[in-house]
């Protein structure tokens, strides 16, 4: 039964990683850049929710929605100011800029909200689920997280496959210059990608802080990196890949925390990344690109 508890908790954590990984994988697929600041947008989202909910006493659901809208704007503004001018520049420059943005968000939050840890009140109020005569207890946060993750995944897949904007995203990720020739607004599509990713990041942030109720300016950094790892393991650019990668990573992390060592769980997660990169660099569901010479 212990194992099952750890496993379910792992799925819950993995769902959060999956939602964050979506932001990475979409931006990587479409803008061909690693948006290092994605994890920090998540942290900002959590702070905004915290301010609305705990300090202003606004209804939790409304707080989260407001935070998601704020994050959407922040994501688009970041893209506009920092990344758009660098389109077409070498990838090292873009990566360093993204790190700059990530760092900027962390430090501006530090100045605004202070270094001390905020204790985040869970937004989920339904009672936990008890199975097998109470031997297996699944927390309400886990249920909401897993459910929300599946909903988001289905909604996003439908959006990409059924809407014009979604098809434009696919086109831009395949070939940016050809998309321009076909009359697709590439800049608008990339901005949209950032908007969606940041919108989802706010939800991931709130879910993360509901499950692990401490909030500091660096809250988003490590989950952000792990979500990127999840996106790589699942196959960067692939939405189901982000989902699978996130779940694998979450379960792996929780099981190694429980059975091997809490302090070395991160090391184990990253070793899996390295092994994955060696065995199949394109990830589980990714397609390998042939470089044109």
């Amino acid at each position, binding site marked *: 039964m212990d194992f099952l508890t750890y496993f379910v908790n792992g799925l819950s954590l993995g769902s959060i990683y999956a939602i964050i990984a979506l932001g990475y994988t979409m931006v990587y697929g479409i803008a061909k850049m690693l948006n290092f600041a994605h994890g920090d947008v998540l942290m900002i989202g959590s702070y905004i929710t915290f301010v609305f909910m705990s300090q202003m006493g606004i209804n939790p659901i409304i707080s989260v929605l407001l935070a998601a809208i704020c994050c959407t704007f922040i994501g688009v503004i970041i893209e506009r100011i920092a990344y758009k001018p660098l389109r077409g520049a070498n990838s090292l420059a873009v990566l360093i800029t993204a790190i700059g943005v990530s760092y900027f968000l962390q430090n501006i939050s530090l100045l605004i909200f202070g270094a001390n840890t905020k204790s985040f009140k869970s937004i989920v109020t339904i009672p936990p689920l008890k199975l097998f005569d109470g031997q297996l207890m699944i927390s309400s946060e886990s249920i909401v997280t897993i459910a929300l993750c599946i909903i988001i995944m289905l909604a996003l897949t439908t959006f990409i496959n059924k809407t014009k904007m979604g098809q434009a995203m696919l086109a831009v990720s395949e070939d940016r210059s050809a998309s321009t020739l076909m009359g697709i607004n590439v800049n608008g599509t990339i901005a949209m990608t950032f908007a969606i990713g940041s919108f989802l990041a706010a939800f991931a942030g709130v879910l993360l802080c509901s499950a692990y109720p401490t909030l500091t300016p660096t809250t988003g950094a490590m989950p952000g990196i792990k979500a990127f790892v999840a996106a790589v393991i699942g196959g960067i650019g692939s939405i189901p890949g982000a989902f699978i990668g996130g779940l694998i990573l979450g379960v792996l992390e929780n099981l190694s925390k429980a059975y091997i060592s809490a*302090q070395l769980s991160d090391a184990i997660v990253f070793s899996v990344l390295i092994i994955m990169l060696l065995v199949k660099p394109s990830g589980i569901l990714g397609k390998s690109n042939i470089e044109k010479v």
Partner: protein
Amino acid sequence: MDYFKLKRQKKARYNLSIYLMIIIAYAIVMILSSQGKISSLLNGLLVPFCTYSILAVSLNLVVGISGELSLGHAGFMCVGAFTSAVFTRYMKFLGVEGLYLFIIAILIGAVTAGFAGLLIGIPVLRLKGDYLAIVTLAFGEIIKNIANAIYLGFDENGAHFSLKNTMALGLSDKGFVVIKGAQGITGTPHYSSFTAGVILLIIVVTIILNLVNSRTGRNIKALRDNLIAAESVGISATKYKLIAFTIASSMAGVAGVLYAHNLTTLTALPKNFGYNMSITILVFVVLGGMGRIRGSIIAAVILTLLPEMLRGLSDFRMLIYSIVLIVVMIFTSAPAMKQYMEVLKNRFPVIKNLKASVLKKMSKEGE
């Protein structure tokens, strides 16, 4: 064959300017210090100047010369610091002290950090740059976590190691605990000095300058400029990127040795060995100019000095660094910015002439 003469002279002049800069700065500090005119604040910064310069110069080898992004440079520094400090601290416990131990410690730090670099580099350097950034970042964090979790002690039966606590080491009465988990290593002998730092910096700079201007260095730069073309003339990407990465890691280890032996207590904090530190070093490199050795040293010294001089701004330091990263990158790399400069230059003939003369000079040089 005039060209080679000219080229060598130019290279020699640039190299000489770096050495002269270091030596003159050293001489000024020494003269002022002998007259007692150096404030205790500045005195405390002398060894850090050297440590950070070594870190910046060595990271420049990876980022500027090799064109790969490493975000775990502080992790390699941490490896060098801890391995060397374990050695000197245990020697001190055994009653052995002396400057020759410092030299051995430097070798230990360089070898272990270089080995760590090799181990990380072998799998990862085969992949594209973004992955290297993530894996090195992860590595840096893992090293910091491990350094915080380890308990290490010695007794007559050899080394004892645990991840739990001091008692779990099971040392005999004669045993001695060197690393006490999060408390780190206390009582490290104070071997570092400004003179030692300057000597190490000169050695590191010499190695990098000689490397860059040799067959290996040219191959590394060729891979950076065009990987496919470099392979088509028979250059192994894995081998040469690995050489650059390993040498840079090893130098970061040396900086770690210098750092560890400048303090009595060595603990692994986010501030000294974490992600923050790696970013700070990256800022030195970016601000000093990618591939510019002299620039890295100047940036490291100024950016170490500045926050100490302006204590009131210390809360804003990291915020300012982040803005510096973004702004420098947009100004130096954005395609539109380059075009804008072009427009500006056409509108104001003065700039045009100025820029033309600079460009003329630059186009003749190359790198």
